[in-house]
């Protein structure tokens, strides 16, 4: 946790010039999880640029990689909500 806080501070100085507050995610159930949890590690324009060409299976595989390999703190209950949000709003 300490490391997360320390890193969040240094990321803040980055955001001061690279203004990711410009990113507007589409509204819908699951947006809040995406905007808080995915955004711990990366700006959510990563989702926008990867759209719209992934289907449900494609987003499911990506979210699974983020959780299992990258350590995204998304719970098993949240995972299907996130996948549905991404598929509906950023899927093909």
């Amino acid at each position, binding site marked *: 946790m300490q490391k997360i806080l320390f890193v969040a501070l240094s990321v803040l100085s980055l955001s001061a010039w690279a203004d990711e507050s410009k990113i507007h995610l589409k509204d819908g159930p699951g947006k809040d999880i995406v905007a808080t949890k995915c955004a711990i590690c990366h700006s959510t324009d990563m989702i926008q*640029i990867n759209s719209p*060409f992934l289907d449900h299976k494609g987003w499911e595989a990506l979210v699974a990689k983020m959780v299992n390999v990258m350590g995204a703190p998304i719970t098993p209950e949240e995972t299907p909500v996130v996948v549905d949000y991404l598929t509906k709003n950023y899927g093909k």
Partner: protein
Amino acid sequence: MTSRRDFLKGAAGGLAVAGGALLVPRWAMAEDRFAIPAPSLASGNIEASTLESLPGKKPLIKRTFRAPNYETPTEYFNEVFTPNDAFFVRWHLSYIPEDITAENWRLKIGGDSVNAPFEVTLDNLKKDYEHVEIAAVCQCSGNRRGLSQPHVAGVEWGYGAMGNARWKGVRLKDVLNKAGVKKEALEVILNGADAGVVEKTPDFIKSLPMWKALDENTILAFEMNGEPLPHLNGFPVRLVVPGWTATYWVKKIIDINVSSKPADGFWMRKAYRIPMNKFPEMARFTSQEVAGEGNTPITEMVVNSLITNVKDGQRFKLGETVEVKGVAWDSGKGINLVEVSTDGGNTWNAADLGKDYGNFSFRQWSFRFKPKSRGKYAVLAKASNRAGSTQVFELIWNPAGYHNNVVQKIDVHVA
């Protein structure tokens, strides 16, 4: 009014009915010989990719704010060396320490396959080893990934996840030899100061086979185009691995381990892999191959070129000379030919090659032609290297979108 093109199309159709398309003289076909699909980025990518400024950088094409992934606009490739303030930025992990200085930076050399581990300062590196300078292209493995059809997930780069610079530093082999490399050494494992935001994220750690690490062209660089490296390009020291894709060019390098075992982290074992046998000409990194997995680490860059001064759809006046310019590069065999077609690939002419800055550099090229009539001219450029390798007309699709060296086709209109 019937245009010449429509007339010819009609004539060709008529002849085909009469006796077969082979009767039509090649000049009269007026069709592009190669079905190269127009490159297209995904619509969400185009919308989100705005020009944004980073400290010390000109506005670049932002793919993602954080980790910062910013691409160089094509116009900068009209110069043979890409300016430091326009050089692309690519990071995997969002924690990029900003407090590393020329004074406090340290590089540790160790591992189970050196005799005497040691640590160097930037001052040691500059004073104790011979300086070398090399012009070399730094290109992301995934450059042009965004153009893959079907699209594949990742950072959706267009053409500009690359740059060419004069890199000055010291040979990695000189530094390794000071530590004494044991005969069982297998790989050199490289780590930079960047890190993930959560503990579980695999650190970005790469490795090279000994033969590449000991290559005289592989250097620890502290200067880029005569200046210290920009922070976002790896200040104070990054590895430069001429001919190989930029995934190996570890930025803000702080740890080097000479190991008797293959590196086993995610970024070597799982990421940056290409299907075995799809790119048979490429150098193999065999200690990273696992039988039955069917893949191998990406290594060298494929032969490639880019048209830099004329845009698709650009208009010219009849009577004007059209000059098409660009750059070409490869894995270091050296570009020896760039051919340009102005008729959709039916006929080809050799372009003039610019000054030779060494086999690992961009090679500039230019071709001039004076259109004789109004209409559309499909312009293609294709580079070849001294080993006889050239570009492809059809994408060799692979799941990570690597090695896209499809010949570019742009239309110019003469009116």
